[in-house]
Each structure stands twice: as C-alpha cells, then as structure tokens.
C-alpha cells in the first residue's frame, strides 16, 4: 500500500518540513502527496518534482480552501482507504489536523516522530526530548506527524509525478475562517533556516530584538526566541523555539541571553554548531554550546555585527 503525505505549502511552494516528511514517508512505501487549500494547484508542480513521489493530489477550493482542520481531516479520511500510513509535518497545520484524522479512523496518532524503525515501529521524543521512546503501533493504519529537523529533506528536483484532483470531500461545516495575520518577513523560515539567532529574557524589551535582527540579516539567518522572551512579550509566539514551540536543527544556532532551560534546549539541541552569548558563566546553555562567550549581550551583539560586516 502507498503512503500519503499531507503537504504544507505557501505561495506556490512546498515548505522544507514537507520535504523532510516525504523523506520519512519514503522509508514506508510509495509516496503520494496531497495538497489542500488555496494555492494547492500552484504548489502541485513543486510536489510533482520531488524525487520518489509517485502521485500528487490537489484539493484547492471549497471547504478546504483555508486549511481548516475539520474539512481537511474529512478529506484525508475519505482517501485513507488506499493508504497504510498518513503523514504530515509536525507543523501548526499538521498538529491541528492529524490527531483529528487519527480519532476518526479510531487509531492512536504517532506525534512528532524522529525515527522510523519499520512500518509499525517509530521513535519519538517525550519529556521535552529528555527521553526517546521507541513505540510499536498495533493499529492497522498509522497516522503520523514528523519532526522535520530529524529527517534530511528530499531534494527539490528530480521527479515527475502526475497531478490529479482529489475527489471532493464533505464539508462538516463546523467552523468558519475569519482571517489571518501573517507576519511578512524577508528572513528564512525558522524551521528551514541554515542559521538561527535567538534572544532570551535578557533582551529586556521587544525593541532590543533589533540588534539581533541586524546580525540575522548579515548572516541570512532566521530569528527565534526563548519561551521566557515570548512570555515577557518581547517576541511573538511564532518565534518560540522549544518544547512547546518550534523544533529547529540549523547548521548554526546562536543563543543570545538565553539561560538554557531544558524546555528551550528541547527545541535546538540537535543544531550542528551552537554558540551561546550570556553574561552568566554558570548558565546551563554553556553545557551544550560548542562556543561560549561570557559577555554582556548589549556589548557583544553590536560587536558581532561589526565583526561580521568586515
């Protein structure tokens, strides 16, 4: 049986976590990709080019136009008969839809998997990544969300899969989309960026994040924040890196004024190189940092900007 991946797409392109999810799905069988919502048609060309994808299904308008969980879950359930596994990235969208799909199919969802052992057995982090559980599912069908940072994405080019329209699914009419406020940014997405620079509570204000943003723009980096900075209102929740925010594993992660609570480490400890800048030399972040600089961030970050501009 084939496996189905529910893609995240934006502005006619697939997100990098979607390509990582396809990489995980390829370990399980022939991969079909489903794109739902506005722009699905435009993004289908990108999905068709992914190596190893055998078929692309699109559902553009109607009830699924805004990606609401209830109609998208209904669509997935209507397609589920042909698939052994249904996967999505563990993004805000995937985490919203897939548990609903699982319950409709009477199976236990496998959330945020970071490893595929075999068709029934998966590895997933628990307790903020302080333990890894290997679990075997007894359910006939598997419904899965995938931790993108744990799977190298498949290349963007190389395949040529046929694109078909998915059969229309019922509209449960339980919710209505009223609007969205999407922050416009030229910077890369947190979960796809090669370099991430994050600020913590020591940033002391939202305005002060500007000094981090300057460094980010020089490096082409995404900007993140600790939960403490989000709680304090210095940064939007969308920027939160950690157990209850985004999980990132960039080549370079720069933690600025972040003490390194286990909940934050859960979101970034798989980064290839970690830099910590903190004035408290006892801060736990230094225990995971490859390069630590004990310094006042308000002095060190502008210096870093100047040094990188040289």
């Amino acid at each position: 049986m084939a496996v189905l991946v529910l893609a995240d797409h934006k502005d006619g392109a697939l997100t990098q976590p979607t390509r990582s999810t396809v990489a995980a799905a390829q370990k399980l069988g022939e991969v079909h990709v489903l794109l739902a919502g506005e722009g699905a048609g435009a993004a289908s060309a990108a999905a068709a080019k992914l190596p190893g994808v055998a078929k692309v299904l699109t559902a553009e308008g109607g009830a699924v136009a805004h990606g609401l969980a209830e109609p998208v879950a209904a669509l997935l359930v209507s397609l589920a008969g042909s698939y052994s596994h249904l996967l999505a990235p563990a993004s805000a969208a995937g985490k919203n839809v897939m548990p609903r799909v699982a319950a409709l199919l009477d199976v236990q969802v496998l959330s945020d998997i970071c490893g595929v052992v075999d068709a029934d057995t998966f590895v997933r982090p628990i307790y903020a990544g302080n333990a890894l559980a290997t679990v075997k599912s007894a359910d006939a069908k598997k419904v899965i969300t995938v931790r993108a940072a744990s799977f190298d994405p498949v290349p963007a080019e190389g395949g040529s899969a046929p694109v078909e329209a998915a059969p229309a699914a019922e509209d449960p009419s339980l919710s209505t989309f009223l609007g969205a406020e999407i922050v416009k940014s030229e910077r890369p997405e947190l979960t796809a960026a090669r370099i991430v620079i994050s600020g913590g509570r020591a940033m002391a204000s939202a305005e002060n994040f500007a000094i981090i943003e300057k460094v980010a723009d020089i490096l082409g980096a995404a900007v993140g924040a600790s939960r403490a900075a989000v709680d304090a209102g210095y940064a939007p929740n969308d920027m939160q890196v950690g157990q209850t925010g985004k999980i990132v594993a960039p080549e370079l992660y720069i933690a600025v004024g972040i003490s390194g609570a286990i909940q934050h480490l859960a979101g970034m400890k798989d980064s290839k190189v970690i830099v910590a800048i903190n004035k408290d030399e006892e801060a736990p972040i230094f225990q995971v940092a490859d390069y630590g600089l004990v310094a006042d961030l308000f002095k060190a970050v502008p210096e870093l900007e100047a040094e990188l501009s040289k």
Partner: protein
Amino acid sequence: MKVLVPVKRVVDYNVKVRVKADGTGVETANVKMSMNPFDEIAVEEAVRLKEKGVATEIVAVSAGPSAAQEQIRTALAMGADRGILVEHDGVLEPLAVAKILKAIVAKEGPALVILGKQAIDDDMNATGQMLAALLGWGQGTFASKVEKDGESLKVTREIDGGLETVSLKLPAIVTTDLRLNEPRYASLPNIMKARKKPIETVKPADLGVDVTPRLTVLKVEEPPKRQAGKKVGSVQELVEKLRNEAKVI
C-alpha cells in the same frame, strides 16, 4: 453555558526527568507531580469566562490514578465548581482519554471543552483534536484568544507565521496556547473552600470505554548527550572560530 476542563497529572515542569536504568520508561517514583501547565491555562480561561458571566458552571475532570485528585483540587481552588476523577492506574493514551471525555461530555452536556494543547510528559498534542473528532465538534486549537460571539465562539489561533481567527459553532473544543492568559495562584481561602467541593469518582468501565493502549513501548532511552565546547575570549575570536574551525559562516 457549562464548561468542561480536563486536567492531567504530570511530572512537574521543573523536574529533570531520568530514564529508568531498565529502559522501560522514566523515573516517576518520588518525583514532584503537578497539573500540566497548559491545563492550568485552560482552567484559568474557564474561570475568566465564568467571571464574565459567559460560563455558568465549570467541571474539572482528570483521567488517571487516584492521586490525580490533587490536580482536580487545584482546579477547584482556582475556581472550578466540581470535579470528576476517572480512575485508572495504567497507561492512558490520548485516544483513550478522548473516549473517556466523550462519555463524560454525554453525561454532562457542556457547550465548551477547554484543554491544554499538549501534555509536557508524552508531548502528544492530540487529546483535544481527538475529542473534537469523536464528538463531531469544531476545534480551535492553540488558542491565544477566545470570545463568545452570539451562538458561536471566536478563537484566535497561533499558527506558523502568525495568527488565524476562526469562528466555531457551539458546542466546540478549544486547546490553549501560552499567550491565552496567565493562570492565577489559588488563594489560601480558596484552597480551603476547594476541599469542600465535590469530586465524583468513576472508572473507565463504568463509562463503557475500552482504554487498551494501541502503542507498545519497546524501549525508552536517553538521547545522545552533547559535549560542552570551549569558551572564547572575545567576539573576534568567536567569528574567527566560526569561519575557520566550524566553517559555518
């Protein structure tokens, strides 16, 4: 309207969990237990809805061991009116909890169930969505704002890239995100009062729910440890190392 708030007993946020030597799980004996932090946000939101006159009664329910009464008492001290403990000593996966809650909803008839988006022990992020599916209700997950709007509920949701607002037909499910509110501390008089509030105890079998786990845990292990690296003396040295040693910039 009546509001149901499920609460989970979990290892406290501040505890550094240890994997058991035999690899069967994590050490939970003699470890501080608390209400799941996202569930505290759910209780707080329900109490605020009651203070605004939107909610009429708040029922806190927990599925777990007998000791989960402590977490129900915490919810009662925060302002919930009464509690239900669905007592079960073994593993309860989100699907089983959703089935238990569906049975409680059938008995209680709430117009709204508010749950934490994620429990900090199994990190599943699933029970609310699964309950919504089983009930055939709409879901407003990862909520940062909840407003009653006539016969529907307006929910602002945290999504990748920003915020989304949806309108849910009632009855509905809401799961809480961090910025929804800041939970209150229960005052001593309210803790005393909570002792007199009723807690009903039932078993999953009384509700006709099969809670057999679908997942078998084959092993639990520690993730690979990261070694602490070196301290650098200056920004110049840091940039030099990143360029020439780590070669990442």
